[in-house]
């Protein structure tokens, strides 16, 4: 009795030469074995060709870019360390002001989630906040650090004690939203979901900041919007273990505007 695996090996061309004759004769003599041989031949070719077809698939550009990013981190890295470093500036000289912000916000804002649009008619609270920050900065004689140039409205979600404002400040120290908008506006309509956009912005280590189009959506007003994510978590303060930051950009009067910045851990 011929073992069917011998037939398979014969069909696959992996049977030792010295056994060929015996198997060949058996196949020729038995229609059932012939049918089995055809089955193995057919499925062997099918799997081989399908494998080739799959291997010949090009890796899409956006996937290749992600792979390249992942390859650059040779060592296993916990999530928080794969981040852009926006915190390097905050060394000894800024520790004081960071602490001041933290203290200030313990009294006022418990949030780790949202900054929403810069509505000019709805910013009294934040204007006061910015003034307070400027005063603190002056008191500490820190001149190189600017308060956020935008008026922000904070939508708070209760959370643990957090250094949110420090993170916002640091984000804005490096994130030039006007420059970003002007750059991304030129390509955003062509970007596909998960495609990476490389900006000219750099983090504190000089690393180029990249963004990924996370999703397309419509705002409540029916405007076309894009959710753009920083490609890596950001380290925005000394205690920040990594913050995922996404930006909502909505098309208003043919121009994309930053409608919200979302912070999630």
């Amino acid at each position, binding site marked *: 009795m011929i073992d069917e695996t011998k037939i398979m090996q014969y069909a696959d061309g992996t049977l030792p030469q010295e056994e060929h004759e015996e198997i060949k004769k058996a196949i020729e003599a038995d229609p059932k074995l012939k049918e089995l041989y055809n089955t193995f031949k057919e499925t062997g070719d099918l799997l081989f060709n399908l494998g080739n077809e*799959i291997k010949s*698939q090009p890796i899409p550009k956006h996937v290749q870019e992600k792979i390249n990013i992942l390859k650059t981190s040779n060592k296993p890295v916990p999530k928080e360390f794969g981040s852009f470093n926006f915190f390097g500036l905050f060394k000894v000289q800024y520790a004081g002001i960071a602490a001041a912000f933290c203290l200030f916000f313990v009294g006022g804002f418990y949030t780790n989630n949202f900054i929403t649009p810069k509505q000019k008619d709805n910013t009294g609270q934040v204007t006061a906040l910015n003034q307070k920050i400027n005063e603190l900065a002056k008191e500490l004689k820190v001149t190189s650090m600017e308060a956020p140039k935008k008026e922000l409205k904070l939508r708070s979600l209760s959370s643990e004690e957090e250094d949110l404002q420090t993170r916002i400040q640091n984000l804005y120290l490096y994130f030039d939203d006007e420059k970003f908008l002007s750059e991304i506006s030129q390509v955003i309509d062509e970007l596909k979901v998960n495609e990476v956009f490389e900006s000219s912005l750099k983090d504190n280590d000089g690393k180029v900041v990249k963004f990924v189009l996370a999703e397309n959506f419509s705002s409540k007003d029916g405007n076309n919007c894009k959710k753009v994510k920083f490609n890596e978590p950001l380290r925005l303060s000394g205690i920040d273990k990594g913050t995922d930051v996404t930006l909502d950009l909505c098309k208003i009067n043919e121009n994309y505007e930053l409608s919200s910045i979302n912070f999630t851990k």
Partner: protein
Amino acid sequence: MKEKLDENFIKSLLPYALSITRGKEDQWDLVIGAYEYLKKNEEKYKDHPNIKAIAILKMKSLYKDEFRKNKRFTSMTDKEGRDIEIADEKQLDISDKISLSFESKKVLSIIYNMGEKCREILDLALDHKTYKEMSERLDIPIGTVMSRLAKCRKELKGLMA
């Protein structure tokens, strides 16, 4: 890690991703998701004999999570009373973005609806692994590889008929 996480490895994940997404665009999301997971856990899996199996499990869970999030499953109960989840019909469209032939997609779909042992070994065959490599990968004797492969190929032929 015994297996190198290179481009060939990444492409070897594609058949499974294609089969569960039915050729939709998000196949690459699954592949990259699994790859990212493995990269981040290189230390953890450095001695694991079957990294691809880990990647497949990861893709499976990513896909289920994604579908659940977007409510693209219809929960049903089969004849034997088991809970099953069926992807909504509109999600099963074959995307033109994949250049595999319709026939190839159909074959992939058949393979990945077979039992686990067949899926596993035919997936390795798609990756052009030798019997010996299959044996090492699956950690089973080469004789078992051959008999399993023969059985699964016969089953495949029957399902394609």
